[in-house]
């Protein structure tokens, strides 16, 4: 994948640029647009009298994001570090602002904006935290392996993650996840992380009884317990909480091996609510079948593989940690999204990176990709 650029002008060392990743990003984004069109055209036609409404909106933002990605990728990533603290502080300001003057949609204040321009600050928080933690860990040096170092990282993460979680639980979980992954890579210790991971899996395995107990102790809200019960037995709640999950399962199940064919989904016709958002993977399954769904997962896996390569070869720890943060972010979202859609874990609103509809999400994902490509661009090819 190395580019062989003829040595010109300055005697600059040959630089690497991860075109594989770039093309993967382009492919996923375009595929996402196709799937957004496919899954939303029916609803968009009814609602806006324009089948391409959602697709066009997303396409414009994705195009803008792509340009920004290229620009960022051409910059030296060390430069971002200068903004880390500012961005971190800004995260708090934005999150507080959104809870006060946020734009309400579906009963939740998640958007900030003026006029037609609006964005979800939670997406900004993710990227800010990645940069902030990377910078902190680099500055700590070997202290990261000490208890204090770990605690410092946790103290940096918990407050902002908490505020985000209060606004949007899923984003809070993702932010925690990103910090967890970055700490895992940075820290020499292994077992505490495995213990945490196992704890999480165990919690999931005994979610039903645990949730019931928690609810009885008034720690869990009724609706949260409801979600867990729905997860355990979606077919028992077809019209209430289980509706979305069950409709998603219908879509997935209808797909079979090769699917109905692109554009042939029936579940997108109002059955799966807002099919272009969180549940878009179920429509992919219905239209493209197991074959298409597995292909999508494999492409994400390839993307993560590229992240690993870039992180391994990053010129310094800061670059490596930036890439690891992005890797964690994307991996967590992909895994959680597909897990939710396939009802492997309880339902929580997580989008599928690059594919789900959402302007803020795709814009900041592009920025993150820009950062990763920037890191890749700093890799000096030996010889």
């Amino acid at each position, binding site marked *: 994948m190395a580019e062989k650029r003829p040595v010109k002008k300055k005697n600059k060392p040959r630089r690497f640029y991860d075109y594989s990743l770039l093309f993967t990003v382009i492919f996923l984004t375009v595929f996402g647009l196709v799937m957004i069109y496919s899954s939303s055209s*029916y609803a968009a036609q009814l609602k806006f009298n324009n089948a391409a409404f959602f697709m066009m909106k997303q396409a414009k933002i994705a195009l803008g994001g792509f340009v920004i990605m290229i620009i960022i990728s051409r910059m030296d990533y060390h430069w971002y570090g200068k903004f880390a603290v500012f961005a971190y502080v800004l995260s708090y300001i934005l999150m507080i602002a959104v809870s006060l003057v946020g734009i309400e949609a579906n009963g939740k204040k998640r958007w900030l904006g003026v006029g037609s321009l609006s964005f979800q600050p939670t997406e900004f928080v993710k990227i800010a935290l990645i940069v902030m933690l990377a910078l902190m860990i680099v500055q700590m040096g*070997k202290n990261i392996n000490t208890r204090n170092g770990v605690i410092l990282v946790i103290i940096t993460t918990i407050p902002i993650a908490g505020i985000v979680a209060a606004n949007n639980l899923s984003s809070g979980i993702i932010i925690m996840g990103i910090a967890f*992954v970055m700490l*895992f*890579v*940075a820290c*020499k210790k*292994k077992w505490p992380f495995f213990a945490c*991971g196992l704890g999480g899996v165990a919690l999931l395995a005994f979610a039903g009884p645990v949730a019931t107990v928690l609810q009885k102790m008034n720690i869990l809200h009724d609706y949260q317990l409801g979600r867990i019960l729905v997860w355990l037995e979606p077919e028992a709640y077809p019209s209430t909480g289980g509706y979305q999950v069950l409709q998603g*399962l*219908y*879509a*997935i*199940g*209808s*797909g*079979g*091996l090769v699917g109905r064919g692109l554009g042939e989904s*029936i*579940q997108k*016709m*109002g*059955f799966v609510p807002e099919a272009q958002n969180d549940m878009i993977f179920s429509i992919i*399954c219905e239209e493209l*079948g*197991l074959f298409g*769904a*597995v292909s999508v*997962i494999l492409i*994400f*896996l390839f993307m*993560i*593989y590229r992240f*690993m390569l870039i*992180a*391994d070869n990053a010129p310094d*720890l800061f670059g*490596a940690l930036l890439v*690891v943060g992005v*890797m*964690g972010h994307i*991996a967590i979202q*992909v*895994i959680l999204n*597909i*897990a939710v859609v*396939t009802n*492997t874990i309880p339902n929580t609103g997580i989008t599928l990176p690059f594919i789900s509809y959402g302007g803020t999400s795709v814009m900041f994902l592009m920025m993150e990709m820009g950062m990763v490509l920037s890191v890749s661009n700093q890799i000096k090819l030996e010889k």
Partner: protein
Amino acid sequence: MNSNKTHHREKIALLFFLLFLAMTGLMGRLIFLMIFQSEHYSAMAEDLHERERTIKAARGNIIDANGTVIATNRTVCTISVIHNQVKKPDEVVAVLSKELGIEEAEIRKKVEKYSSREIIKTNVDKALGDQIRTYHLAGVKVDEDYKRYYPYDTMASKVLGFTGGDNQGIIGLEVKYEQYLKGMNGKILTMSDAAGIEIENAAEDRIEPISGQTLQISLDVNIQKYCEQAAYQVMEKKGAKKVSIIVMNPKNGEIKAMVNVPEFNLNDPFTLNTNTEIPASAKEKQDLLNQMWRNPCINDTYEPGSTFKIITAAAGLESGVVKLDDHFSCPGFRVVEDRKIRCHKVGGHGSETFLQGMMNSCNPVLIDVGQRLGVDNYYKYFEQFGLKGKTGIDVPGEASTIMHRKQDMGLVELATVSFGQSFQITPLQLITTAASIVNGGNRITPHFGVKATTADGESSHTFTYPMKEGIVSAQTSETMRYILEEVVAEGSGKKAKLDGYRVGGKTATSEKLPRSLKKYISSFVGFAPANDPEVIALITIDEPQGIYYGGTIAAPVIADIFKNILPYMGIEPTEEKTVSTFRISG
């Protein structure tokens, strides 16, 4: 830094491995869902998406004996406007007002009303609907539908019956032959979205509808129309409440006409046919409608009165307790046990033979015959003639005979039954029994349905009806024909006499209950030709004003009907006609 890097690489590799495991796990989950659970979920999804839309099957026509269509379907249009889609409201108002003949203001109100769909007019002729379509007005909808249509409006309304909103029969033959007429609705199985809107181009399963079968009935429109006219005339002339006429083929029970005036309009069956004020409560209105829809020939019973003497006479002759020339004497009454039962002729008929007694419609003579038979024998014949049960006609709602129980029947009851009082039967039961006695003794089943033919004409089903032979001997039957011919020729039924035809018959004037009201039902049952009956007819006139004797008001109506329908049926008058005309003019 180098050692650091190695450990970071190791960790990143481990991370990648874990993520790889997680994704593999998800792929496994997908395989489980999409391969092993696929059938389960796709079946559930299919269930959710499929919508069944029925294609209405055209209801079968009903045709008369000559093939004239008397019940069919008509395509009608419903004109409606959809507010949101109307582009030029002024033009819409102008066109609809012009075409439909409705005030502009009224249409404008509907066009401007903000609603999803406003119906302007229903049951619009298809031609007019098509014409409105040619304007291509945005927002104006012309929807087509089948509607049951009866070309003769009121003809035989209580026999044919009508259909309801789902094209199902509600009363009359429409109910009885529902299974032949209704056909089978077709189905379109379509896929639909969550809002129930059909998905275009989705594969659809289509099951074609099967049109209903054509039902041919024995009713003859010409005879029916003539009888209806005659019934209306006598009803009007006599100020009667209602008049019913049944015309039947006595040999096989095919009913050629069944008139119950006042009839109602089958194309508008929910409007009362009287001028009475429409009652406020829905229940009262429904009661009145149910009354209007009743078929008095079949659904109601009455005391047959003197026409029933045919049965007593036949029973007497059949058992041999009486002969034509047996002598009786009528002092104007007969005492049975402690009861004095009067004859209609107060002074009495004096000495008379049995034949003369019948011709005079003398009550004491028939009481004597009844007494000679005795309760057991009389009851035996009552049952043998089929009077106990229903006639089995193919019109729903037939009323049962109301008769004394055998153990409760004393000589007084026997005496009154002998001349047609103290029990009730339907007019149809009377004509059926009379027909069976004069047709040679075969109890026939009165009916309308002849055959049902599939819409494509490929197969047909001819209905068969039971016939009980030998309820009286051929000999008795012949004697009865002779007696009844004499009744018309010289007796109480002489107003039914018709030049050139041999007519037999019997009159009756029944007092309605309670007797104190002095309300009557005048009736006459007649048949022709008397030697070999081809047609038998019964008229009942309910509550005539003024003269109410059956022989005076009912018999001439039947004579008039016979005069017109016999030639129509191909029964030409005999030579006697000219002779008698000559005689009279001479």
